[in-house]
């Protein structure tokens, strides 16, 4: 019996090759998309889930109104906070603090002896090095492959490396006891090697230096909110009870400083398990995502597979006229209705099974491209050992197979044999509205996706066409030397002079940060006559007198720095003696600081903390420069104060050069760099590449949208083809009658597409407000954005209309050219 079912199933498939192929292909793509999205979503949802203390682990956040403009919350905090919490609150079992090496030590060259005994130098910018309490090993479940987890990070001068780094630095040698040097600092000893961290953890590092290397001052420091503070509460502790104690805690430790600066600070607990999905604070350690995006993606996945399944139903019912005779005959010879239902369900399950197998193949093939697309190692062949994946697939097989099979099964098995055999077989109108609703839904989704992709593309080209306000094309950036001595100032000037002898080089500037990169330093500044609480937050960029020339930034008022303007620390300390620290500001800073016009700002005094201990000093504004895009167009212009220190605090040397035959110039610069700074590696990049890298994640997001749009529209078009064929079969009689009554071919051909295209237009009407809403949401992340125009909605709808028309037309033409005489007689 079963064998007979399979035999018939196979024959049905072979007889209807086109329909079977469309069914299988549509479903396979739908299932593959479903697997891809589900894997991506589950990857994101599993962030930090590997941590065994996840339920008791919290990050201590800091919310304050320092610098005006309301309260802002930071992911970082003062280094003393977690220590004091452990001392004050019995609920706190342990704590760990981490700080970026850039905050403590800036940029430096890391050197070590490799397996062959060669001294290898590498720029630290390429690595993820943090300084951390030894407890981090327990709190973050760091698995030591070598070394002892209890002691690896307790001593000052210890460093532990990830497996990958240990392998890269020392090859097969045992890294324990090896020395790493950071410029002139005393060397760090490798005391452990840890398993590479999973990709989906919010805190990724590949090297950790012991916190004790910083000295004991961190336990008393309450004015440096750049440290990540994590605490582990005793199991079962209600975090709300602990948080309730925070106001008093803040008063105890911060009241003095809060009064002095006129601000309020609050502490908060943030569950680590929520960080990746919910946290968007200042100083996040890595880019987080939003739960809504994930739910939205999951809904798309669900719809894509639903669309594919409904296609199957449409196609099956479309074919039912041809199956009717088979059903009629079987019924006449006495087959039971249940046996017929089983047969059709088996066919549906078989189609689903083949599609799943094909989908597994498709996903396996696309593992690498997909990972590259999203820039994360999300997929691997290992996913096929995950029972959850198989649960999903089984659900798709049975729910999909039975749902999709049930409708055709019951419709077909319900045919009345006599009517069918007499040829008086008509299909019911039942399900027409269901199918219409489905077509509208699938096309609304497709249109929304295409509109979204189109708008994303528009925003990218808008950003690329924008004037950045500085020269991004002709600038080569070199990592500034870090191995320096007291002669660096003079040496650098000579180096610049030597390079400028090359006629291809126009200007050179030495700076702490570069445009296209977030400025590391920010602080509160105010006009000299204002009170402390009137201060506003500004970024501080250290530059030299060639900065404007090199970057071609316009000066709007006052003057540029001159060679003798550079200020030393001594002069700041002695400023009361009548010496002046001169600064320039940008246009936004002039407005934010409260100057009426740009000229008003010139020669005015402003106050801000100038030394690392927070001591304030007075500076005089000598010039106002035009706004330019310091960061990507996602970020609005913000106030920047430009300082020109005479002490060396540089990270980058920017060379403005003629870019024709650039390789030779770059080689010449390298040669000179090697002569002047023999202990530093010559690392360079073009500013343009660097700037474009800011858009990488957006570009990827764009590609993912494009991919899903194409697949969704493909599956929807398949569905429309199915529905078109169905309607063509159903309406052939009507077409023939109309032809007999005098309709010409065009009038007849257009009949079916007209009604289907009306549905697509309706989808457009539904999709437009939805895509408008989401486009606005997405664009609101960009300070500089393209204006939404009606075309951005009309073009996708027209495109989808075109695709829809193309997918139904062939079947309509086929139906329209039927010989009416013959068809009506057969009816």
């Amino acid at each position, binding site marked *: 019996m079963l064998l007979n079912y399979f035999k018939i199933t196979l024959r049905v498939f072979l007889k209807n090759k086109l329909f079977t192929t469309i069914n299988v292909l549509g479903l396979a793509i739908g299932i593959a998309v479903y697997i891809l999205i589900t894997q991506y979503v589950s990857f994101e949802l599993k962030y930090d889930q590997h941590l065994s203390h996840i339920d008791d682990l919290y990050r201590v956040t800091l919310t304050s109104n320092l610098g005006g403009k309301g309260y802002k919350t930071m992911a970082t905090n003062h280094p003393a906070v977690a220590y004091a919490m452990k001392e004050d609150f019995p609920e706190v079992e342990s704590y760990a603090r981490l700080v970026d090496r850039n905050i403590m030590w800036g940029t430096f060259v890391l050197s070590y002896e490799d397996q062959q005994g060669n001294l290898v130098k590498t720029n630290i910018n390429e690595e993820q090095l943090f300084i951390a309490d030894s407890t981090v090993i327990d709190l973050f479940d760091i698995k030591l492959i070598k070394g002892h987890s209890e002691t690896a990070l307790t001593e000052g001068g210890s460093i532990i490396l990830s497996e990958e780094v240990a392998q890269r630095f020392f090859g097969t040698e045992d890294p324990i006891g090896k020395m790493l040097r950071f410029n002139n600092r005393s060397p760090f000893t490798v005391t452990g090697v840890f398993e590479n961290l999973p990709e989906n953890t919010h805190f990724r590092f590949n090297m950790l230096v012991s916190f004790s290397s910083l000295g004991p001052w961190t336990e008393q420091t309450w004015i440096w909110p750049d440290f990540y503070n994590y605490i582990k509460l005793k199991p079962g502790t209600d975090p709300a009870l602990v948080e309730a104690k925070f106001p008093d805690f803040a008063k105890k430790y911060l009241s003095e400083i809060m009064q002095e600066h006129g601000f309020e600070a609050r502490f908060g607990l943030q569950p680590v398990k929520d960080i990746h999905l919910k946290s968007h604070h200042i100083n996040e350690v890595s880019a987080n995502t939003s739960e809504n995006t994930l739910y939205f993606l999951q809904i798309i996945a669900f719809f894509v597979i639903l669309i594919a399944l409904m296609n199957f139903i449409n196609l099956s019912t479309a074919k039912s006229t041809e199956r009717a005779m088979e059903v009629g005959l079987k019924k006449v010879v006495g087959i039971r209705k249940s046996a017929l239902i089983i047969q059709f369900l088996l066919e549906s399950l078989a189609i689903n099974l083949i599609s799943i197998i094909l989908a597994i193949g498709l996903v396996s093939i696309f593992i690498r491209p997909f990972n590259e697309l999203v820039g994360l190692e999300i997929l691997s062949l290992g996913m096929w050992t995950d029972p959850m994946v198989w649960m999903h697939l089984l659900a798709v097989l049975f729910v999909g197979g039975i749902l999709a099979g049930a409708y055709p099964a019951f419709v077909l098995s319900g045919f009345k044999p006599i009517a069918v055999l007499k040829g008086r077989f008509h299909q019911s109108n039942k399900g027409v509205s269901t199918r219409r609703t489905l077509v509208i839904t699938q096309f609304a989704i497709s249109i929304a996706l295409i509109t979204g992709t189109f708008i994303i593309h528009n925003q990218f080209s808008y950003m690329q066409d924008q004037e950045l306000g500085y020269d991004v094309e002709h600038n080569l950036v070199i990592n500034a030397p870090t191995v320096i001595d007291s002669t660096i100032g003079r040496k650098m000037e000579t180096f610049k002079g030597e390079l400028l002898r090359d006629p291809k080089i126009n200007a050179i500037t030495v700076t702490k940060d570069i445009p296209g990169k977030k400025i590391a330093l920010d602080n509160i500044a105010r006009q000299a006559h204002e009170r402390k609480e009137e201060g506003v937050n500004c970024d501080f960029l250290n530059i030299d007198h060639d900065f404007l020339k090199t970057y071609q930034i316009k000066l709007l008022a006052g003057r540029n720095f001159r060679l003798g303007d550079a200020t030393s620390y001594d002069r700041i300390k002695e400023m009361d003696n009548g010496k002046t620290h001169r600064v320039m500001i940008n246009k936004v800073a002039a407005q934010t600081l409260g100057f009426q016009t740009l000229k008003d700002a010139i020669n005015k005094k402003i106050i801000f903390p100038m030394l690392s201990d927070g001591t304030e000093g007075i500076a005089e504004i000598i010039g106002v420069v035009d706004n330019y895009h310091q960061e990507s167009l996602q970020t609005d212009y913000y106030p920047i104060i430009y300082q020109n220190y005479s002490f060396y605090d540089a990270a980058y040397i920017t060379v403005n050069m003629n870019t024709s035959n650039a390789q030779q110039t770059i080689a010449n610069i390298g040669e000179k760099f090697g002569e002047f700074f023999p202990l530093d590696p010559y690392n360079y990049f073009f500013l343009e590449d660097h700037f474009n890298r800011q858009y990488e994640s957006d570009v990827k997001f764009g590609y993912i949208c494009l991919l899903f749009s194409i697949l969704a529209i493909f599956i929807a078009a398949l569905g429309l083809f199915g529905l078109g064929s169905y309607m063509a079969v159903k309406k052939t*009689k009507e077409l023939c009658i109309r032809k007999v009554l*005098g309709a010409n071919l065009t009038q007849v051909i257009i009949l079916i597409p007209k009604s289907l295209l009306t549905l697509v237009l309706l989808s457009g009407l539904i999709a437009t407000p939805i895509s408008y809403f989401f486009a606005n949401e997405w664009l609101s992340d960009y300070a500089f954005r393209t204006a939404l125009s009606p075309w951005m909605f009309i073009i996708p709808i027209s495109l989808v209309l075109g695709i829809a028309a193309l997918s139904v037309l062939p079947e309509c033409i086929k139906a329209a050219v039927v*010989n009416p*005489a013959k068809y*009506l*007689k057969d009816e």
Partner: protein
Amino acid sequence: MIKIKDLEKYYKTEELQTIALNKLSFEVKQGEFIAVMGPSGCGKSTLLNILGMLDDSDGGSFIFNDEEVINYNERKRANIRKHNIGFVFQSFNLIDQLTVFENVELPLIYTGVKKAERKKRVEAVLEKMQIMHRRKHFPQQLSGGQQQRVAVARAVVNDPKLILADEPTGNLDSSNGNEVMELLTDLNNQGATIIMVTHSEHDAKYSHRIIRMLDGQKVTENSLI
């Protein structure tokens, strides 16, 4: 009005060729009512389809209103058809989604008649067929006899010179069948030429002349008047 000579039509399948019309010749004059009879498969319907310009022939001559139409393309034939010929089918062939009024209106739409004129003409013909009160109904809400009257209304709304009827009473009971035959006779009396394919001797008696066919050939032709 119609003059066919040596008309031929073959149907080919992969293995064999069936002759549907075998050098068939006859004439029909304006205002005649002809019944075509014969067993199933004798070529009656094929003949009707060729006369209705729904189908091609494979040889011979077909003169319609003094015009040789045998080699006309689809567009030209459609044009002659929609202005000159009305069809009545055994299975009525009404469009389920359209109302009685809309069904009858269709041929006028395709001949480009203006809306106001269409309304006038459709209402006039519905009145004549006594189904005006059903004009807003859908076909499935009507009895078989009523449906066939709608089909006849549709066939004559354009004032065709020729009405082709393919077993018009085949799906009707005898009283409804008689009504339809009366209707056709009336139309014929008003000047329409009618060619009707039928199995029914009873219906054939309404005609002026019976052409009997077998194997694609005319076997007898007897006049009833």
